[in-house]
Every structure is written in C-alpha cells, then in structure tokens.
C-alpha cells in the first residue's frame, strides 16, 4: 500500500515539480535548513496532503512551490513554467493566473465584502468580473446568501470558504492550502474538506494541502510525510480515486474515508512513529 518513492506514470501531467529544492534561512543566530534538496512532483487532478512534525518544512515547501518564496537551490516548475528566471512581476502574473491559495487565517481583505474579495483576483488581472460568475463561485461554496457581508461578519468556516471561492475564480492549475482547517471546529473542517475533495473529483483540480490532522489527510489521494526538510514517507490510496469510488457506494458524492484505503488511524500511527524518532 505504501511505496518508498513515487513512481510517476509517464502519461500523467506533472502540474507542480520540484527538483532538488533547498531552502536555507540564515540569521545571526545561525542557519536553518528548512528544505533539504527535495525532489517531488504533484500530478494534475490529484489531492495531496503534506504532513510532518512542526518545523519540518511543510509551509516552506508550499511557499517555494507556489513561488511565494525563492528557494536557495534547485528548480520549481509549475504547469510547465520554471519559476527561477521569472522576475517579481512575471511571478505575480503567474501566481495570479495559475495558482490559488488558502491559508489558516488572514485570508481576506477586511475592507471588502465577500463578493469583492472573490472578484479581487479578476480585478487585479484587469478583467471586469461578471456578477453571475462571482455569484456562482460563492454559490459553489454554499455562500450565495452572504455575498454582501464583510469578513468581520462571517464565521471562520465561512471566511475559509470565501477564500476558497476566491482562490478558484481564476481557474488555477493548482490550489495550495496551508492548514486550511487549522482554525476551524470539526464541523466547519469537514465542510471545507468536502469542498476540496469535490474540487478534485468533479473539476479535476490539483490540490496540495498542508495539515496536522490525520482525518483531513485521509481525504487526500496521497500523503507526503516530511521531517527535517526531506520527504521521509509517502503513501497513496490503494486504488485510483475514480475506480475506488465507483466500487464503493455507487456514485455517492463523498465516499467515507475508510473506504478509500487511507485510514486516519494509519496516518496517525505513522505520524506518531515519525515524531517519536525525531
């Protein structure tokens, strides 16, 4: 069920590819190697969870992969474009068009309404957002009724869903999420996770999510375990997602985690081993 290294089928498209990417933070107090020559790929249409002990480099991986931060070594390719040679503006344009983000908090501009927040990336691209499009995006995350509310008037889960709607409005090649459920209660978490899962299932959206929660990770197609800036373990759902589902509850929207072959208990056990070893 688990493999030590990822064996990539040659037919699949690598939406995000990191080749021996390193990130070293230097400060007066000494240097920290957050990423240690990491090589990893993320296939189009897959949902990947990244786990690992605190400080293992999960956020750094996400930032480097998403072009938010520049690695100190190696190369990052998104949707066929290598990020290294791009200048700040080109990188911004690429992010705007190809990448969506959701973070644990601080996701929304507090002065703007939900609708305006969702439309922001389009406006930034100089596109006049069509009302219907924005409404549809909000409806998709179940917030059609809250379009005119400011972030201060929304619950944490609702805010997170607005952030997801905004991240998807430009139809990005990949959606990055750093602990999107970290600040939510279990019901709100479930709602957000269901949303992410559906995106991969129905739209073929590539999703890369950092999480501490084994339950959240169990919804993914593949789990990467990080320690000290390296991928130390990796496991995928036993069968390809589509097949697994059709053999399950007969086309129901969200198959139960247990049926997918990635059980939270298993993930939790692996994590415990990892945490004990470092």
């Amino acid at each position, binding site marked *: 069920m688990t493999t030590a290294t990822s064996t990539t089928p040659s037919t699949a498209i690598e939406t995000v590819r990191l080749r021996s990417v390193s990130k070293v933070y230097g400060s007066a107090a000494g240097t920290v190697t957050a990423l240690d020559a990491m090589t990893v790929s993320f296939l189009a249409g897959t949902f990947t969870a990244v786990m690992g002990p605190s400080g293992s480099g999960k*956020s750094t991986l996400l930032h480097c992969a998403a072009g938010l931060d520049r690695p100190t070594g190696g190369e990052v390719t998104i949707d066929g474009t290598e990020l290294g040679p791009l200048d700040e503006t080109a990188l*911004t344009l690429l992010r705007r068009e190809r990448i969506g983000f959701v973070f644990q908090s601080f996701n929304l501009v507090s*002065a703007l309404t939900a609708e305006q927040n969702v439309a922001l990336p389009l406006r930034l691209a100089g596109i006049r957002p069509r009302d219907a499009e924005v409404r549809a995006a909000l409806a998709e995350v179940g917030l059609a009724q809250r379009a005119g509310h400011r972030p201060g008037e929304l619950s944490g889960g609702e805010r997170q869903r607005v952030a997801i709607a905004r991240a998807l409005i430009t139809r990005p090649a990949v959606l990055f999420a750093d602990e999107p459920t970290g600040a939510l209660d279990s019901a709100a978490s479930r709602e957000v996770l269901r949303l992410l899962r559906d995106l991969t299932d129905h739209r073929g959206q590539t999703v890369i999510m950092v999480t501490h929660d084994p339950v959240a990770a169990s919804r993914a197609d593949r789990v990467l375990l990080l320690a000290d800036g390296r991928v130390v373990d990796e496991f995928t759902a036993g069968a390809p997602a589509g097949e697994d589902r059709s053999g399950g509850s007969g086309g129901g929207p969200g198959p139960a985690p247990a049926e997918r072959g990635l059980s939270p208990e298993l993930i939790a056990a692996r994590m415990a081993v990892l945490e004990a070893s470092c």
Partner: protein
Amino acid sequence: MLRTALIMVRGRWSGFAGAFVALCLGVALISMTALVYVSAAPRVPDRYEGTGVLVRAPAAEQAEGFFLEDRPWSPEAVTVLTGRLRGVPGVTAAVADRSFYAQAVVGGRPVPGYSRGHGWSSVALAPYGPVEGRPPERDGEVVLDRALGISPGSPVTLLTAAGPVPYTVTGTLDAPGFHVTDAAAARLSGGVRVIGLVTAADADPARVERMAREIVGGEGEVLAGDARAALEPRSDARTRWIGTQVLAGMAAVSGFVSVFVVASTFAFGVVQRRREFGLLRLVGAAPRQVRLMVYGEALAVGAVAAAAGAVLGAVLAPALGGLLVEAGFEPPGFSVRAALWPPVASFGIGLGVALLAVWSASRRAGRVRPLEALREAEVDRRPMTPARWIGGAVLTALGIGLAAATAGAAADAIVNYCLYAAMALILGLTLLAPVVVPPVVRVLSWPLSRTRGAAGMLVREELLAAVRRTAATAAPILVTVGFTVLVTGMTQTTAGAFALGRTAAVRAEAVVVPDGTPGLSDAAVAAAGGVALLPTTVYGEGGPPLEAAGITPEALARSADRLEVVEGSPGAVRGGDGAGGTELGAVVARWLADERGWRAGGAVTLAFEDGRTETLVVTAVVADAPVAVLLPRDTVRSHDPSALTGEVLVDGAVRAEIPGGRVLGADAYARNAGDEEDRLVWIFTLILVGMAVGYTGLAVANTMVMATAGRAADFRVLRMAGATPRQVLGAVAAESAVVTALGTALGVAVAFPALLGMRSGLSEKIGAPVPLIVPWPVVLGVIGGCLVLAVGAAVVPALAAVRRGR
C-alpha cells in the same frame, strides 16, 4: 485598481480621517490666503476718487521691502506744471496736493486713526459731501472729520510735527483728515508729488488725459482710471507688503505641515497595512498595482478633501481679511474680492500635495512581499536606508546652517529664516528618527523598567521593537515642540537682542517712544531732551530714494566713538543755512559711498523732501551708519516740516510731560513693550505657531488613534494573559506619555542648538552677551497640550477595544 482603492477608502474611512482633515485644512488655508492675496491689490485712495486724471512725480524703482516716498517736484516745477495744466480745455483747476502730519488731541490724548492734514483745495479731488460750516480762510483754522464730534466754532488742539498747536474748527466733513488753508498746508508739508485735475462736467476725460500727457512729458506720470491706484499711500503699500509676507509664511507653513502630516499618515497607514498589501500581492497584485492602489486611495481622499478645503477657504477668506486688517497686516478699507482661480488652484495644489505625500508610502507598499500576509507583525529589520541617512544628514546640516544665518539676517527676514531652519531640522531629524529613537527611548523609559508590574516592561519593549511606529507617533510631537521652541525663541531672542543693541549703542537709561501717535513731534523731543534721529528721505542724482536722518551736532559727538569711521571725521558735520558761507556736512554710509563713488571731502548734491536741492560736503564715510545719509538736524527740519522722530534716547530721568510720547526704562524698552514692528512680528509668530500646533495636534491625535486601533489584537492577548482593563489602559497611557516625552526631547534637541548658534551670532554682532529668551509658558502650554492629546487619543480607542474584548 482605482475602484478597489475607492472601496478600500470607503471600508476604512477612519484610517484616512487624519489625512483628510489635514489636507482639507491645508487647502482651506491656501485657498483662503490666495484669495486674500489677490484681493490685496492697491486701491484708488478715497481722496482721489472724485477726479479722473492725476499727475504724479516720476517714480523710481526701489529695492524689495523699501517703501520710501518718491522725489517730489521742485516748487518752481510745481508752479509751472499747475499753470500749464490749468490751460487744458475742460480743466477748471490743477490742485497741488499736499499732505502733512496732523492729529487731533482730545482730552489730552491724541486721537488714533487717520493722521494726515491737507490743503483745502485738495477736497475738490475727493467725492466728499458738503462741508458743514465753512472752509478754512486764514491760519489757525481747520475743517476736520465730523466723526471726531467737534462742532464748527469750537477750539481744537492739533498735534503737528512741531508740537501741539491751537486751531479753530470752522467746519466738518464726512471724511477723515484735517484740512487747512493752502498756504498753511504749504508751510506744514514738504513738496508736492501729486497734481489733481478738476474738470468741468462736460469735459472729455480721455482728451484731458491725452493733453496732460503732452504737457507733462518726462516730468511726471499721468494716471487715470484704475491706474490711479498707484497713488496709494506708501504706508499702505508697506502694510500690504507685510501682509503678503505673512500670507506667504502662512502658506509655506500650511503647505509644509500638511505635506508632513499627510505623508506621515499615509506612511503609517502603509506600515499598519502590510498584511493587507501582502494579501493583495498573494492573490496576484503586482507591485505596481499595489503602488497604484495606494495612489488611488490618496487621490480619492485628496480629491474630496481638497474640494472641501477649497470651498471652506473661500467661505472663510473674508474673516481672515478682517483679522489681518485688525492686526495691522492689511491697510484699513481692505476687503476680500471673490475670484475663481484661487480656490481652483488650491484644489489642484491639494491633489498635488496628496500625491506627493503618498509617493514614498506607495513605494514602500509596493515592496511588501506576499509572504508578509502570513507573518505576525514583522520587526523592522532595516529601518535605515542609505537615502534616509543622506537625506537626514543633509537636511539637518541645512537646518543648522539656516539657523546660524538667522543671526546675520535683516530684521524682517528673521521670521522666514527661522521657519526654514525649523522645517529643515524637523525633516532631518524625522528621517534620522530610527537611529535616534532607540537610545532616547531607553533613557526616557528607564523609570518604567524599575517598576514591578508587567506594564513597564511591556511599554518599553513595545516602543523599542516597533522603532518605525514609535518614530511615526513621536514625529508630530517633535514637529510641534521643535517648531514652538525654535520659532518663539528665535523671534523673542532676536527682538530682545536688537533692542539691547539699540540701547547699548547710546548707553541710554530711558527711551521716549510714541504713544498713540506715528512719531514724536519737536516739542516732545525737546521735552525729552536726549539723543534723537529725525528721519527723512533724500534723493541723489538718479537711483532710488535714500533713507536719511537729521542729528544734532551734540548727539553726533556723543555717539561718534560708536561709529566705525572709514574716512573723514563725523564731528565735522555742521549745521548752517548753506548760504551764509557755512558749509553743510553729511556723513555717508560706506555702501552708498562705494556705490556712488563719493569720498570724504567731496561735494554731493541732494534733493530733499520739499523738492529743493542742496550741495553738501561729505565729512565722513562710516561703515555702520544707521541710515544711508546723516545730516544736520536743522537742515532736515528746514526741508521736511512734517518729519517725525521715532524715539529719543535719554540719560537720566525725564521730568517733563511729553505730548504724544511715553517714557520706557531701558529694561522695558529692551523687552520691546509697545514696539509696533515687534508687536506685528510677535503676532505673526503666534499665528504661525498656532497654525502649526493646530495641525500637528491633529496629527498627534490621528497617529495615536491609528496606532492604538492597530493594536487591538495585542490588547486582547494582554487581557487573555490576565491583565485587568485598568492595567491595559495604564500601559497604553504610559506608552503615549513616553512617546510624548520622546517627541518633546527630540523637539528641544532640534531647537536648542539652532537657538544657541543664533545667540552667539547675535552677541558677536551687537558686541554684548545676548540673553536667550524662550517664552516658557507658551512652550510648556504646547507640551502639556500634546500630552493631553496623545494620552487621550490613545486611551479612548483602547478603552473601546478593551470593552469590545469583554
């Protein structure tokens, strides 16, 4: 992007309120001063409103700030000119207009107000109503202003240049001024500079003007219609000029302070909104777009604020005009005229100021990196940039240089020098703040670190960690205190020094100064019995008019050892009639001798106030003459019957009653009580300081409110960590108090070196130690105001945050 900016502004209106108010007030002030400025054009004097065509003596170009009378015609030229002008068809009379000093004395005191006398025939040039009573017919008769309440037939005492003289009132007019017979006016006044043409009702003014021009030729200037405004009294022109200086100073201060306040508000806003900008960058905003958005916000706030300010200024302009007249910065009768371009131009300036102010803030906003959206409050790693170092050092040096230059500046330029010095120093120190702030904070907050509670430590560390924020909140206080200490200290010290210099020059024990009069009469000078200069104007061949003064031989002898003689001997100035073989002597200032090539022993020909010329011998050239030419007092008096003495320096007590004058002890004089010019300068200073303080007070409140609002999360954490609301508020209040102390310390640090430099310069110039005068009540009041404002502006929003947190 602009739309987003608009939405942002609407969403966080409170964050822009400070910039809005500052800009609105700045534009209002500029619009107001511009309106007053364009209204302050010369007007046709009322006295000449009744006649269409006037001729005046040729006017010579004068240096900026000089308002000496032009050279009058000689008596012969007046006779010839009036005779020929009277021959113009349609002209019924050519009136030689004469003016002299006269003031009514009622109840033993001179009546203030218009203090000029004229010949009766000048009344024909004015549109005055009919005389009640009859015109003056012989010496000792006068027609005066009905408003004085003296009825025809009553006796009246008129104060003239000679002293009090009894007159009989023969009539009253509904107009200011004292009208005596033409013969009496000729004796009391100097020369004639204006000839008015009284025309018949059916005369063609254009034809009269043309013919007058032919007759006068190069001997004068024919003025008709609006051009008659050139006949405005020189004293009014001078008042207007001072007013213009005041307005320019006000505009400069309001421009500077509004740029400063708006810029710091925007800069502070950017610092506080790093996370928001990071988020925008995260969702795909390019640095340029973030910059544009910040510009867009400034434009949105700026447009509304500038429009409101322009309108406000237009509404308030008449009130400002009234105030300026009252303070003596504009001549009486001045009123503000409506004009469109000043408000429109100030609107444009306001927008420009907003964009200029936001320039550096926008650059900083554009540099925010997307990851900053995900970080906790960032500690400023690189608060000092090379540009800051260079700019700060250059401006500080410039400020110190300007302050030193103040010592050498002319009296009327001192205020402006002070202002520029203050501005440069303030900007310099603000730029250097990130280096200067931490050590000062450490010293100032030392007492806090000795306290047992958590609050002391918290305050200290907060201030030290967020150097930029601390500097930003202290900046307006720095400006306020620095400005107040520097400007008030400079004006007071300089005024004191000049008075000291004047007193020291003659070692006088007392000084007699005018009291309710424009100057002292001969009778007053005689009663005082001291050293006095009789100021007048003389005219060389070509060139501008020259300031001159008459001095008695005894007085000259007494102050001879004080004059720095270049050549000749000033003692050789002798009085005389010039005809009886006695030679007339003149002491000439070196700059003038150099300019005209005059040498001691040589002869010079000068024209006087009455239009007559005289040939004098230059007895001495001196380096430090108080005026261009020193002449025997008798000579001056014989040519200028209307001249008044400015002040008399007296040794010993003055026993006699002095008509129209009062005695000041040397100390009182040195403190400059009652000196008109210094009073104006002081009022001007207070206006400027008041304005600057009003503005910066606004900025203090604004930055404090913004800083506190930005820290609601910190307060929540504190509360959760077990702090009582009282403890949180205490910490906030202590922090604002430390920031106020910081701003005050830096402000004083800005001001004192400059003041000390100026003092040493002045001491050197005067040759006596000059005391440093700082009006502490004003300064302490300003500091106290800042403290109340800062603490209040921090505690009130913190209180709201703490309440909300519960």
